[in-house]
C-alpha cells in the first residue's frame, strides 16, 4: 500500500467516524503501525493547508477528528440555522394536533390514530420545543406521556389550551353514523 492510498483510507475512516476516533483503531483496521498512521495524518493536514481546504484533522490525546477551520464557523452557522427553520411537515402537524387535542398522550396513542410509526417526528417536536414529556402514564409499560409546551402556544398564537379551535363535535352529534372514532379512542384507554 502506498502513502497516498493509506492517506485516502485514513481520511475516509476519520470522516465517517464523525466523533474522535483512536489512532490505534485506525492502525488496526489498516494493519499499520500507529506511528505510520500518525505520519499519514500529518501529511493529510499539510495537504489540507497547502490546498487551502476548509477542513482540518484535530488530534485530541490519542484520537483524531475531522472538523472545519474556525473561520468557517459563521457561514456554517447561518446556513444550518436557515435549515432548522423549515416549516413543520404535514406529518409533524398531524402528530402535534393529535397531542394538542388529547394531551397527555403516549406516542403509541398517536401512532394508533395515524396508523404509522411516529417516533422520529415526536423526537423532533420535543427538540423544537413544541411538545414536552408529561411524566409516565400509570398503565402497563408505564409509557411516557407528552403534552404541548409553552413554545407550542407561542407558535400558534394561543394564550392557553382552552383557545384551541373547537372541534366541530356539536354538529356531529346529530349524525348517528359517526361514533367509531370515539369508540376507538376509548378502547385504547381501556387497554
Amino acid at each position, binding site marked *: 500500500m502506498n502513502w497516498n492510498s493509506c492517506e485516502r483510507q485514513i481520511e475516509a475512516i476519520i470522516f465517517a467516524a464523525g466523533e474522535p476516533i483512536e489512532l490505534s483503531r485506525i492502525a488496526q483496521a489498516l494493519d499499520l503501525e500507529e506511528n505510520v498512521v500518525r505520519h499519514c495524518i500529518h501529511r493529510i493536514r499539510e495537504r489540507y493547508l497547502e490546498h487551502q481546504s476548509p477542513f482540518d484533522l484535530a488530534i485530541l490525546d490519542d484520537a483524531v477528528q475531522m472538523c472545519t477551520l474556525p473561520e468557517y464557523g459563521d457561514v456554517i452557522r447561518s446556513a444550518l440555522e436557515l435549515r*432548522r427553520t423549515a416549516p413543520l411537515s404535514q406529518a409533524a402537524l*398531524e402528530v402535534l394536533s393529535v397531542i394538542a387535542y388529547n394531551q397527555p398522550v403516549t406516542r403509541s396513542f398517536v401512532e394508533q390514530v395515524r396508523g404509522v410509526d411516529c417516533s422520529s417526528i415526536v423526537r423532533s417536536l420535543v427538540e423544537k420545543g413544541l411538545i414536552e414529556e408529561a411524566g409516565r402514564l400509570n398503565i402497563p409499560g408505564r409509557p411516557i406521556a407528552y403534552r404541548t409546551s409553552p413554545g407550542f402556544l407561542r407558535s400558534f398564537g394561543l394564550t392557553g389550551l382552552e383557545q384551541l379551535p373547537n372541534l366541530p363535535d356539536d354538529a356531529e352529534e346529530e349524525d348517528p353514523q359517526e361514533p367509531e372514532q370515539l369508540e376507538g379512542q376509548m378502547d385504547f384507554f381501556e387497554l
Partner: protein
Amino acid sequence: MSMETLNFTVAQYEAPLDLILHLISKHKLDILDIDISSLLEQYLETIESWKTQNLEVASDFLEMASRLVYIKTVSLLPRHEEEHEKLRQDLTGQLIEYSICKQAAKTLGSVYIGQDIFVREPAPIEFDPAYTLTHPAGVLLAALADAMGKGARRLPPPREAFEPLINRPIVSVTAKIFTVLRALRTDGRVKVDRLYRMNTDRSGMIATFLALLELIKSGKVALYHDQVELTFPHQNLEEPNS
C-alpha cells in the same frame, strides 16, 4: 432435510403471485391466456407438497388457492363466459404488474450501494433548535382531521376503519321487510324510490334493496308500472286510480 433448507423452500416465493409466475414459466403456460385448470392443479400440488413437508402455508397462499378455485368454478358455469374472462384477465394483469415489480426490484438491487457509502452526523453546533415560525391555530384542526381520517367523512370511509364493526349487523334486512310490508298495507302501492328515500344511509338502502329482492323472489310482492311501483300480487289485476 434441515430446518434451514425447509425455510428456504418457502422463502423462495415472496407472495402467491410469485409462485404463480414460477409455475407459469416452469410449465410453459401462456401468461396472456392462462389455462386455469392446469395452473390450479400445479398450484394445489405445490401447496400440498409444502404441507407434506410440514411447512407452514401462509394464509395468503390459501387465499390465492381459493381465488383460483373460484375462477375455475365460474368457467364451468353456463352463461358465465364474460365473468370468467374478466377474472382471468384481472389475474393476468396482476401477474404482469407483479412481474414488472420483480424486475424493477432486481434492477434496483443490482445498483444498491447504500451499505458501502458513509455519511457523517451533523456537526454539533450550538444553536437554539426551538421552533420559531408561527401559524394560525386553525391549521391544527385541519391536521387533526387528517390524522383521524375525518377529512373524508362525506365519502365512503376506508375499509380498515370499519374492520372492528364489520361483523355487526348495521341495519337488519328483516326489519326492512317489515317496513316495506307496512308501507304496502297502508298505501296499497308504493313507489320503490320512496322506499329507498326512507333511508338516510347506505347500509339502510342496501338492506332495503335486499329486503325487496327477498320479497319479490318469494312472490309476496310484485313490481308494477315499469318496475317503479310495488304492490301485493293480487293488486296486479286492478287498474291504478289514474
